[in-house]
């Protein structure tokens, strides 16, 4: 008798992915972890999971390789195969939620690259129907910016921002991928008003930056895992287009709530209704 399959559809960034497993415990973990992002939408992509016994913790780097439309993604705690043409894949991992987070981040980064979008190391929040992004390496102040945000700011993420290109605007979506804040973002979206690159300083100051420098910083903070020239070419093209369309600024900030007064004064791109 065939083992019954359990399915959960997780929709992050408006991209529903069906997660199939015969492991009821794993499914419960998925439904609990991604509860705000569960969806009844018809999934465009499907992942089948084989859950194995827990493996020893590993510091292995993730390895991502492509052969035609077939991607293979490996790390010490999981192995995944993904066919970008059919939109289907297979994952072998233990029931560790952090392994699943990693698999989903990598998969979304590959899907987004084909659509002109990307995942960015950035905190983000919505203020008056516009999204503000704060990018930087670990320790730059991403989580700090979300901690000191005024109450009317809706948290999209304190760690990984989800950015998609639509006809008339770049849009940021909330993600469940949390950083030090250990709190998932809200499942909502808004057109991006401005991307700030964070640098801590003795005072709050917003500075213009050359577009080439903005692209350089953007590429440094975009998540991508493959040494694949075609993929890197697409991401570089997306980064250049993003910088052309969305205001990018250097934000030197002193970590207290007053910095948000400066942020609110950035008008950014016109709000598309």
């Amino acid at each position, binding site marked *: 008798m065939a083992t019954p399959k359990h399915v959960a559809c997780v929709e992050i960034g408006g991209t529903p992915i069906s997660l199939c497993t015969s492991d009821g415990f794993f499914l419960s973990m998925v439904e609990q972890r991604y509860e705000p992002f569960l969806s009844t939408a018809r999934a465009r992509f499907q992942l089948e999971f084989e859950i194995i016994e827990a493996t020893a913790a590993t510091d292995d780097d993730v390895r991502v390789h492509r052969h035609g439309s077939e991607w293979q993604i490996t790390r010490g705690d999981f192995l995944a195969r993904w066919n970008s043409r059919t939109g289907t894949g297979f994952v072998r991992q233990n029931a560790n939620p952090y392994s699943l987070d990693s698999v989903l981040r990598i998969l979304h980064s590959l899907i987004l690259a084909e659509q002109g979008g990307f995942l960015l190391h950035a905190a983000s929040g919505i203020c008056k129907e516009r999204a503000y992004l704060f990018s930087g390496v670990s320790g730059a102040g991403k989580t700090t910016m979300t901690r000191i945000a005024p109450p009317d700011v809706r948290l999209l993420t304190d760690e990984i921002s989800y950015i998609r290109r639509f006809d008339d605007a770049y849009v940021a979506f909330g993600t469940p991928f949390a950083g030090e804040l250990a709190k998932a973002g809200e499942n909502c979206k808004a057109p991006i008003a401005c991307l700030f690159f964070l640098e801590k300083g003795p005072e709050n100051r917003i500075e213009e930056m*050359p*577009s*080439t420098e903005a*692209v*350089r910083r953007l*590429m*440094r903070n975009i998540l991508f895992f493959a*040494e*694949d*020239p075609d*993929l*890197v*070419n697409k*991401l*570089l*093209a997306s980064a*250049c287009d993003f*910088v*052309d369309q969305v205001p990018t600024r250097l934000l030197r900030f002193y970590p207290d709530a007053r910095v948000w007064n400066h942020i609110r004064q950035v008008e950014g791109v016109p709000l598309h209704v």
Partner: protein
Amino acid sequence: MSETYIARSSAIAARLLAGEMLVMNSANSTFFTLNEVATAIWQAADGKTPLRNIVRDNVCEQFEVEPGQAQADAEQLVTELSEHGILLISDHPLTSETAS
């Protein structure tokens, strides 16, 4: 005297922005911004045209640079870019590994 031929590596991504060429090595994620002169040399690196001709036609004519100095600067530039895996250098014609 042998000629020098240069071709763009297939391991890189490149994009022209605001007159400057942004180049990224996909193998190690190193990122370079080429100025206008370097961009002109980069764009002409088809593997078939000798560097001497590129400097004459794409640098000296376009930017009014003294030929001897332009040639020396170009040789230094292509050496540096080849050390970073951005350009391929040979004393015989090469197949350009990337699209223009």
